[in-house]
């Protein structure tokens, strides 16, 4: 149920984000979603793509610093309170969120929350016990 996420080191300079995006575009790789964390000096680009192995190799071969981590995607209704409900469960379970980001599916009223936990397995168990729909690669890429 875990999703592979590609992370990449970026310098905080004009044009640095477009380089990897151009590489992926030329290789015909579609980005399901991305998030960018940044400081004044540098940033970390996080990408969810179906062809994560190919993407990893492509960026690595281009000399980028990349790694692969496992994140959890949960599906909630795209309406007020959808995120708050999941966050309550995480808080009650005493789980620490390293970071998170969200996006919506194109064709229905569902939103996807992507979480990075230190212990993803414990997080999956806690979320599923409270009825949260933790989605796997098939559902994620099938709906994107």
């Amino acid at each position, binding site marked *: 149920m875990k999703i592979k*996420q590609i*992370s990449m*080191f*970026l*310098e905080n300079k004009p044009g*640095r984000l477009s380089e990897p995006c151009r590489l992926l575009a030329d290789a015909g790789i579609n980005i399901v979603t991305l998030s960018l*964390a940044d*400081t004044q*000096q*540098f940033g*970390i680009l*996080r990408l969810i793509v179906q062809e994560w192995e190919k993407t990893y190799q492509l960026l*690595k071969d281009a*000399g*980028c*610093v*990349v*790694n692969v*981590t496992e994140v959890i995607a949960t599906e909630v209704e795209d309406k007020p309170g959808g995120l708050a409900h999941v966050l309550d469960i995480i808080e009650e379970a005493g789980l620490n969120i*390293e*970071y998170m980001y969200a996006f919506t599916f194109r064709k229905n009223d569902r939103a996807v929350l992507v979480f*990075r936990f230190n212990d993803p397995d414990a997080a999956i168990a806690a979320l599923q016990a409270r009825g949260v729909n933790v989605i796997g690669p098939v559902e994620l890429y099938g709906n994107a």
Partner: protein
Amino acid sequence: MSHLVVENRFWDPEAERLSREDLTQLQLHRLRETVARASRVPFYQKLFEKDGITPDSIRSLDDIRRLPFTTKQDMRDNYPLRLCAVPREQLIRIHGSSGTTGTPTFVGYTRNDLETWSGLCARFLVAGGLRPEHVVQVSFGYGLFTGGFGLHYGIERVGAAIIPAASGNTPRQIMLMRDLQPDVLIATPSYALNIADVARSMGMDPAGLSLKYAHFGGEMWTEDMRTEIERQLNLLAFNNYGLSEIIGPGVSGECGVRQGMHLQEDHFLVECLDPDTLEPVGDYEYGELVITTLTREAQPMIRYRTRDIAALDPCPCPCGRTGRRMSRVIGRSDDMLIIRGVNVFPSQIEEALLSVEGTSPHYLIEVDRPGTLDEVTVKVEVQPALFSDKMSSMQELRDRIERKIHAYTGIHVVVELVAPKTLERSTGKAVRVVDKRGRLG
């Protein structure tokens, strides 16, 4: 390498174990002789006359501080051999520097100078395991460079057999090692690593070669490199130091304790000075080595500024040699940066970076003075092994590098993480420092 040890033997036990009192007497006597010899060189004659320096005016070793310095530029100004103190017919050898950083410089030797030099090399070679029954491969260049011939004659003096392989053609070097089974290697440390690499590419295990000991010099190297070379080639590696302007290899060398190189103080008077103020630094503190030759006949050197940065250790050594020990050369005073009054060497920053596991030595030091205070930014290329998708880990990494650099240098710097291969690389020596202070605009 615990199975490899070296027995503590001496080449010249009396000279190498002189008491400090006897040594001081000898140094003073020889310093006066040196001043007398140098007075025959017009360059020194002029300087001595101006300051009223005569051999008799040297009352104690502290009087060294009244003597003028000699620099590389002085040697260039006296090109080619105008610093010689003997008539040309008394020279029996001329060595020199390659001149890659300017006009080449030459040094002359009399027969006694060569005798002295061979003996000095024999001392550190024997301290580092060389025995008459050994076979030694000399992979130093034979030529103007002092390394090849200096070591060659030292080995010959000890009575070991020499394979004068010289430098280059590594596959042939390895063939010689395979067939002639040398016990000792003389090379630069980086060339030793190259030999190991090439041996592997030839399908041989470098650790299976016959080498037991190696004597390295001629370039800066680190303790990490020593560990690596010893592991790959299965030998004990010894460090030695010298420079052609003074004599060549033989100024100092390690004993079996391998914690610093014993200065051969009966032949050289060595000072360690702050390169900026030219005042002596304390024991164990880094400074520029300034060397006065005590026995050189052809070309005596008065307070030669080596530009080499090292520290001196006066603590008695368990081996019994009484010469103070000098640390590895950690840098060149030409590269020294003065940051808010603190002397900082790029090599210290490099060591700090290496100590943070996985950090490659690709870095750039930028010094600027936006207001009245110096500011240092160290740009470090991020390595895949250290990259994390978590911002907190990346900031922790940056903080860790900043703390390490502070611990190694005593100054606070700003560390900037940059993408790999974004820092400039010149084909030869990497550009490590950009000093923007004093620039307009």
